């Protein structure tokens, strides 16, 4: 099974090309980085094709005040088109962008967000105020569009990440968005902003939530700095109730994150590691992983 980031990139490519991800499944073998490069090249080609029209739309700016832009957009422009046009036009008229975005409903912003030119996001995301972004971010998490949320979080400033962490109470949403962020530094920033208490709360939410959330958290923890990962890893793999640990290991096996669990266990202290190593479920998992190492590649 492809890893989470690879599946995410494939979904983004499929969405860009308006097709089902299943039609592109053979591309999983390229891995997340190559898929991202491929998607970016195809996205650039799509947006460049319309650059001239976007430029003409931008020339309307002096004629149309912000309130009118908001009115026209929400009455006559589908969010998909607004997302595509808005990125380029907003970049050309940065002084107007915040005024316009402030007038748009969070639902409209969340609908438009998936269609923004990826090249525009790094310029935009850091400049937008948290109070404007948080309602749209909450709406994205409410509809479980973690992929789009992750594309914006990727370029959020430290201040924005702290503001998000405070404003967003949805632990599953933070986990499922965080794991899709490809920049490890941003993932570290998210978990640093979360702090130990929130990190432990996320671990509890993952244990009681859906298996995919637990798998995502294990994958996320394996990619961040050891000291940031340690509290949650201890809550999962060093839990005093061995049934909980056995469940975590079972989910790891089922959801395809065995390697991540084996690696992340290194952050446990000596006592917790020894306790983990004595568990039958752990020994089973390590034997399974060793057997893969000895398999002859097809």
């Amino acid at each position, binding site marked *: 099974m492809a890893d989470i980031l690879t599946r995410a990139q494939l979904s983004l490519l499929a969405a*860009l*090309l*308006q*097709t089902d991800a299943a*039609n*592109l499944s*053979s*591309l999983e073998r*390229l891995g997340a980085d*190559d898929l991202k*490069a*491929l998607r970016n*090249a*195809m996205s650039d*080609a*799509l947006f460049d*094709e*319309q650059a001239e*029209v976007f430029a*003409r*739309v931008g*020339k*309307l700016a002096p*004629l*149309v005040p912000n309130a*009118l832009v908001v*009115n*026209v*957009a929400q*009455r*006559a*422009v*589908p969010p*998909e*088109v*607004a997302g*595509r*046009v808005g990125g380029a036009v907003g970049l050309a008229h940065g002084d107007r962008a915040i005024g316009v975005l402030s007038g748009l409903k969070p639902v409209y912003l969340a609908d438009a967000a998936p269609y923004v030119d990826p090249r525009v996001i790094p310029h935009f995301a850091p400049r937008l105020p948290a109070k404007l972004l948080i309602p749209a971010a909450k709406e994205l998490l409410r509809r479980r569009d973690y992929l789009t949320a992750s594309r914006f979080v990727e370029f959020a400033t430290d201040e924005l990440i702290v503001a998000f962490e405070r404003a967003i109470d949805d632990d599953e949403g933070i986990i499922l968005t965080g794991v899709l962020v490809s920049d490890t530094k941003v993932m570290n920033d998210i978990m640093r902003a979360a702090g130990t208490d929130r990190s432990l709360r996320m671990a509890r939410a993952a244990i009681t939530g859906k298996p995919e959330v637990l798998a995502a958290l294990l994958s996320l923890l394996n990619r961040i700095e050891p000291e940031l990962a340690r509290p949650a890893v201890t809550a999962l793999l060093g839990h005093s109730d061995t049934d909980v640990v056995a469940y975590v290991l079972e989910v790891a096996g089922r959801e395809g994150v065995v390697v991540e669990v084996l690696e992340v266990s290194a952050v446990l202290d000596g006592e917790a590691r020894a306790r983990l190593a004595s568990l039958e479920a752990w020994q089973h998992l390590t034997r399974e992983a060793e057997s893969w190492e000895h398999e002859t590649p097809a």
Partner: protein
Amino acid sequence: MDKAEAQGADNPLLDELGQPRAVLDKLTPEESALLLGLLRKAKVAHQRSLNESLDDGLKVLPRLIRPAARKILFGR
């Protein structure tokens, strides 16, 4: 058939985009053709939805600025 032509036939997406060559070189001819077909369809769909939105947007602009906006957008 010269070399460039042969390469285009095997990898039409590489022919279209040029980059990232290292990634595009990994595509099978079938994958490359499929992706190029989807890209072209998406371009047409984007253009159509953009044109429709510009028309619809013009209709809800105040009458006073509509002629100027139309001239900027469509040159007429």
